């Protein structure tokens, strides 16, 4: 197993770590930083894979990731948080230790799932696909366990990261047009949730999604 693969695995481990961090982090700025870090690891690993596998379009997507996930999105989120004056800790629905246990269970589960695929793959990055899936799942779990709009968005973006990571690790990246398209979509999404934060804020004067439970079937 060559050096690149080793570095790649370390990066994967770091991504997974940040994913867990996102799961357990209470402070909103912390979440933001963790998310930025995750993006960074992601883009590095993408670049690395691109270098190892001579997939030059991966450079582009790595730069794209860097720009989008490490700079633009955290910046947007940061400004939003400042504008909306959200400093207090974000409380979770399920308490942290339980969440962690569930997270670990998820990692094991996704490892089990991806085992057959890993056998099929011949890529240097094949070992990391489990991590990618785990990241997706953890992102989803985070969205479930958090009750703050911003954290939900961050969880959502973390899922996207997982997907990106899957794309680069399972295969050597999707075709460029797809990558670009995905990036564009995420950008639009970012603007949309930006608008949303203000809407929610001005109608519910807080970003706690728990309040948004009016639309239910009458009993």
């Amino acid at each position, binding site marked *: 197993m060559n050096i690149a693969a080793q570095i790649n695995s370390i990066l994967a481990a770091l991504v997974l770590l940040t994913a867990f961090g996102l799961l357990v982090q209470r402070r909103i700025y912390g979440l933001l930083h963790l998310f930025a870090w995750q993006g960074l690891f992601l883009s590095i690993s993408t670049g690395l894979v691109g270098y190892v596998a001579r997939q030059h379009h991966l450079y582009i997507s790595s730069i794209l990731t860097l720009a989008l996930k490490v700079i633009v999105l955290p910046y947007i989120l940061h400004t939003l948080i400042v504008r909306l004056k959200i400093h207090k800790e974000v409380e979770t629905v399920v308490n942290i230790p339980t969440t962690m246990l569930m997270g670990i269970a998820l990692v094991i589960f996704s490892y089990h*799932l991806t085992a057959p695929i890993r056998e099929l793959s011949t890529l240097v990055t094949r070992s990391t696909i489990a991590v990618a899936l785990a990241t997706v799942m953890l992102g989803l779990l985070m969205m479930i366990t958090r009750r703050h709009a911003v954290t939900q968005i961050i969880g959502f973006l973390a899922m996207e990261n997982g997907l990106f990571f899957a794309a680069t690790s399972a295969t050597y990246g999707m075709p460029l047009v797809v990558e670009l398209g995905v990036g564009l979509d995420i950008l639009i999404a970012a603007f949309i949730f930006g608008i949303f934060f203000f809407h929610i804020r001005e109608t519910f004067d807080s970003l706690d999604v728990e309040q948004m439970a009016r639309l239910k079937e009458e009993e």
Partner: protein
Amino acid sequence: MSISPFILAASAILIFLSIPLLVPLFLRHQRLLINISSLIAAIASLLAITAGVWTVWKGSTESYIMPLGLPDLPFHLRLDPLSGFFFTVIGLLGFSVSIYSIGYVKGFLSRRPVNRLIIFYNLFMAGMFMVIIADDAFFFLISWEIMAAASYFLVMFEDEKAENRKGAFIYILVAHVGAIAILLSFGVMASLATGFENFGGYTFDAMRQTEFPIKWATVAFLLAFLGFSAKAGVFPLHAWLPEAHPVAPSNVSALMSGVMLKTAIYGIVRVTFDIIKDFPWWWGVIVLIFGLLSAVMGVLYALMQHDLKRLLAYHSVENIGIILIGIGLAMTFTSFHLPVLAALAITAGLYHTLNHAMFKGLLFMGAGAVLHATRVRNMEEMGGLIHKMPWTAALFLIGCISISALPPFNGFVSEWLTFQAFLLSPSLPSPILKLIFPLAAALLALTAALAATCFVKAFGITFLGQWRGHHTHVHEASPSMRVGMILTAVSCLFLGVFPTMVISWMDIIPEKLVGGSLTTTAGQFGWLWLTPISHSRASYSAPLVFLIILAVVLLIYIFLHTRKTAIHRGPLWDCGFEKIDTRMQYTGTSFAMPIRRILGFIFLIKETVRIEASTGTPGHNTFPRSIHYRLRVRDRMWGWIYNPVADASFWIARKTGKLQQGRIQAYLVYSFVTIIILLVLL
């Protein structure tokens, strides 16, 4: 192209379909619209009658394919004697009712425009004919549902009344669920037929040529029977019928009760005898049992009603039962390969179909005339109408006699045939059936007797005695209405007096369906004697009965009236009290009391008596100021079947409602869990 029954039939349908187009032209002149559309409808019905009679006469079968529907599944049409017979039935009633409508529909003009009524009336007629002529599952169901939808809107005609909405809703619901059941049954048969994969299996022809494995045949039959009996109002699926028929305009109720239910009978006959063909004997017994149930329960519930049209509606349940008895017997005999007996039974069933169409149509038209005149449906508020509307009374009486199965009118003939079919049970191989059938016959007898009782009540309380109502300006029905009723009344008499002609006419049908026929036996003593099996077996000569009674009556009348003995009119004998008033008459409720008391366990009876003590004399109810007696007889089936089903579905609905409980986390959990489950199942 040369003129043929099929052309006539098709043109009749086309005319009916195109009458609604007249409505926009005459929006301003409603009376003109009514006259024209009704007349055209009558003409179209005449065409249909001709087509039907002709087809049965020739025993011909014509089939055409219309390039409509799906390109791979065009509409198949087929006019064979069976369809021809039902064409005749529907046409006959349609003709009289259309004429009746000229006068009747005008009664609405003072209250509302009648465009809707006219449009859907004709669509309804067209739908029924299309059902009869359809020869593939697709077109059959389309016509079936058009018929249902049109009649739904007709029941909804006076949609501001809550009872109309309720009735219409229950009706369309039962009808549609039934239709889906029929659809599934066709699905079974089509999927077994050849060429299903390329849309070939849906035609009845393809189904006819298929040998169904018994298991699937049974599934198909049960589904079809379920669906059709939902439409026919077979007990216990009858509950929609007494809700929907009374609230519809009376010309419509006449059609719904008189012929629409018969399309379901047609469906049963078509599916069992024509498409599936060979079946085990217990199918017949099932049909028989449900027939008996409907007959007895129908008449018993009818006896308890004091709403005239409701009473008639329950009698439709009864008569459908009698028809099904005939069909069921025929099925049993067929399954034991006794073609002649089967022919007798099915003739009885079909003949009663025809008869019921006639007299039930007549009765509903009469009831319509009464409603038209008195503005009430409750018999307890009528009485003495025979003086105010003699024509309607006489015609209604004919209807009553016919439906009570009294010679020499038509109801008796078909029931007599059914009895004969019953009494042939000893020739069945199965001992138990031999033994059960005569008992079933006794139940039929009970039904007939109760029906007679019920119509003594209906006619007596409504037309005889003294007027109990409030307003006095009660008028006789308009000429066109009378003509409509007279037509059916005459046909009742004709069908009762000359059964041999009719039976030899329709003899081709049993020959085609069950391979046996009655002509060999029925006709041999000439048109005078109806001898279904053999002369020594049983015989009935309606003409003679009619003539002898007539002769004797006339003779005595003349004999007694040659002598001048005056007839004095005097007051009633009032037992020495002061003048008795109309409130002291026997009411429908009190008339039915003995039977209600004897068979009370069948009904859901709620009796309440409220006594207002006369003030002053403390505590003495000996001479109360007033006594209020209230009686509610409800159908047990509501409590046993319908309400539980409704409650159950609402319970489930409440549970599914919980799924949508507002919190987004929960929804995310759903998708999360879904993924996990699917991945685990993988």
